[in-house]
């Protein structure tokens, strides 16, 4: 079992991390290149950057999130706080990090980490149930919407149980192995799924504002490409 755990948190973790970094750099690079190209082609380069920045920042604050569908907003907020704080600041993760890098890194007290794990787990479960129970979100749900939530649910749940094996009938090492494998999978899938918004988010408001600033000659070029110059309306 220990060999499997070493494989999961050694080579597999490094492969997952590489997939994450390469994927995110690709996403970020593509988004940045598209923004620069669109801006250079735009007939009107005057952008309302202040309102773009305000819109981008306002969604990072919980106030906006809670205005419509407040229960969903609270669950979403708690889940996001948990999913960012737990991997970075749980004592076990920090210890692993410090084995590789001699850095000073803050860590959550175990009581706080436990509460956060449970609350994040419940929030994730609530989001999953809500998604499938409410008509519009059920209609919108794709495979990845359920799969990503289920994977994260598993990840957080297994992490908690791995830290508290006395609460589970399964062996602690098995829980730890499954937790690490779920974590590896989540990292590797991040650039390929909607979790990519964790890196592309700062660009999205800008993208949709800039996109209304069309290239000055786009229409004429499209007409030429389609052989429609001079064609009646």
């Amino acid at each position, binding site marked *: 079992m220990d060999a499997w755990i070493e494989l999961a948190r050694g080579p597999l973790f490094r492969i997952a991390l590489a997939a994450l970094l390469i994927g995110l750099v690709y*996403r970020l690079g*593509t*988004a940045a290149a*598209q*923004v620069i*190209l*669109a801006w250079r*082609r*735009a*007939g*009107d*380069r*005057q952008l309302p950057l202040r*309102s773009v920045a305000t*819109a981008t920042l306002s*969604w990072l604050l919980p106030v*906006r*999130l809670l205005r*419509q*569908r407040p229960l*969903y907003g609270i669950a*979403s907020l708690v889940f996001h706080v948990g999913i960012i704080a737990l991997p970075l600041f749980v004592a076990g993760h920090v210890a692993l990090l410090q084995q590789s890098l001699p850095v000073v890194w803050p860590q959550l007290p175990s009581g706080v980490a436990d509460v956060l794990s449970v609350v994040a787990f419940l929030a994730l479960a609530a989001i999953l149930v809500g*998604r499938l129970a*409410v*008509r*519009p*979100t059920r*209609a*919108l*749900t*794709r495979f990845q919407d359920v799969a990503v939530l289920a994977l994260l649910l598993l990840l957080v749940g297994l992490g908690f149980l791995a830290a508290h094996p006395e609460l589970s009938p399964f062996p602690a090492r098995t829980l730890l192995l499954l937790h690490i494998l779920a974590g590896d999978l989540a990292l590797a899938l991040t650039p390929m799924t*909607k979790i*990519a*918004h964790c890196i*592309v*988010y700062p*660009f*999205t*408001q800008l*993208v*949709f*504002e*800039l*996109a*209304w*600033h*069309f*290239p*000055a*000659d*786009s*229409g*004429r*070029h*499209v*007409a030429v*490409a*389609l052989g429609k110059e001079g064609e*009646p*309306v």
Partner: protein
Amino acid sequence: MAIQCSYYLEPVDTTDLPRRFLDAFAAVLAHSSYAMVLDAASHVSARCGRCASTCPVYQASDDPRDIPCLRSELVLKVYRRYFTPRGALATRLGPGFELDEAYINTMAEEMYRCTACRRCKLECPMGIDHGLITHLGRWLLAEVGIIPKALRVATREQLEGKTNNTSAIPAAALIDTCEFLEEDCVDTHGFKIRFPIDQQDAEYIFFPAVSDYLLEPDTLMGNAAVMTATNASWTIGTRYFDGINYGLFYSDRMLDRIVNMEVQELKRLNARTVLIGECGHASRSAKAFIRTFCGGDRAPEVINCMEYALRMLNEGRLELRKNAIDARVTYHDPCNIARSGWIIEQPREILRHIASDFVDMTPHGRENYCCGGGGGTVSIDEIRSFRTHIGGATKAEQIRRTGATIVVSPCANCKKQLREVCEDNNLEHVQVVGLHDLILQAIVVPAAMRVDPQSDAASATASP
């Protein structure tokens, strides 16, 4: 198979339709920045459903096909399948989605159930602009000949007809109408106004929604009263005088051509500033896209007539009677000028000055609800029931809750739609007017505009 929609179409050539649609898609992607939009939407959409909770069409219809995210998916699915490596790979791995006529027909129907009000963008945490994706979807459809007949016929007359305007008003009839309005203002309101025609070197060249010349005499008299009272240098060109731009609703190619017509007329008369009348989409088309298609920073400035009126009021060059309007008044924000935050407070400042009982709808301003006829759908008479009972249902309730008997709606399209919404939703007692209709009643007439300068009776105010 013929394309069938709930709106009228001119005959559509369905020969090899999917291939022609994909050719158009490829051409648009090659020469525009839409790929950036489609990539971003594909990668970050959380499918959280917030857009559903803010869309007035979905709220009224309760039909999943009206959820903005799902409408956008119609375009995104084609994009991912045919224009991304992932789509190419999926095709090699097995049978997947294939674009066919039925799918294009579905797109044709769904894209025109959206009023393009862009309210959903405000509530999308990722800022996805489903209005923009619908805008693209409509352009792609237009390139294969799928355009609501009402929009296409009007645009054809505007760009290629004898009259160069969407209402097919000949220049001679425009001049007659302006002369009639000048006389009517004297007869009805007791003061003189001027509609300067083809003046060279004016500061402002005026483009209202051309339908105002047929349907909104009080709005136009109000516009002319403000310009005359402030001694403005302005003109109306006879070669091109239409602010309407249906290109905004279905084709960037047409949008480009139409704003260029405005600028050509400005150059012909050597005017300096484009002044748009009371029309939301005409204002946005000119404000945003004259810069885009006509020279960027070198393009002429564009202002809306309400901005002009408020500036004159604040500078003391326009005098309006305080509390001249007794009835309860509310204000409808046209999406095309309010969603971006451009024109929200300007008309309200004027209304708070001239109306003693002004009440706002909830919500309003940037977060207003669409009248239900946005995105050009108001011109499609055959879908009136959908517009007034689905698209306009929320707006009807908003109006009802204010208790107002006058709704000020500074937009030709919103006015037509709101009148139909009121008729179809038991709000017949509500009058829908333009802001300048009320300004016409409240204006304090300068001596130079009085019919009889010596007459005290006519000097103080215009008669309501």
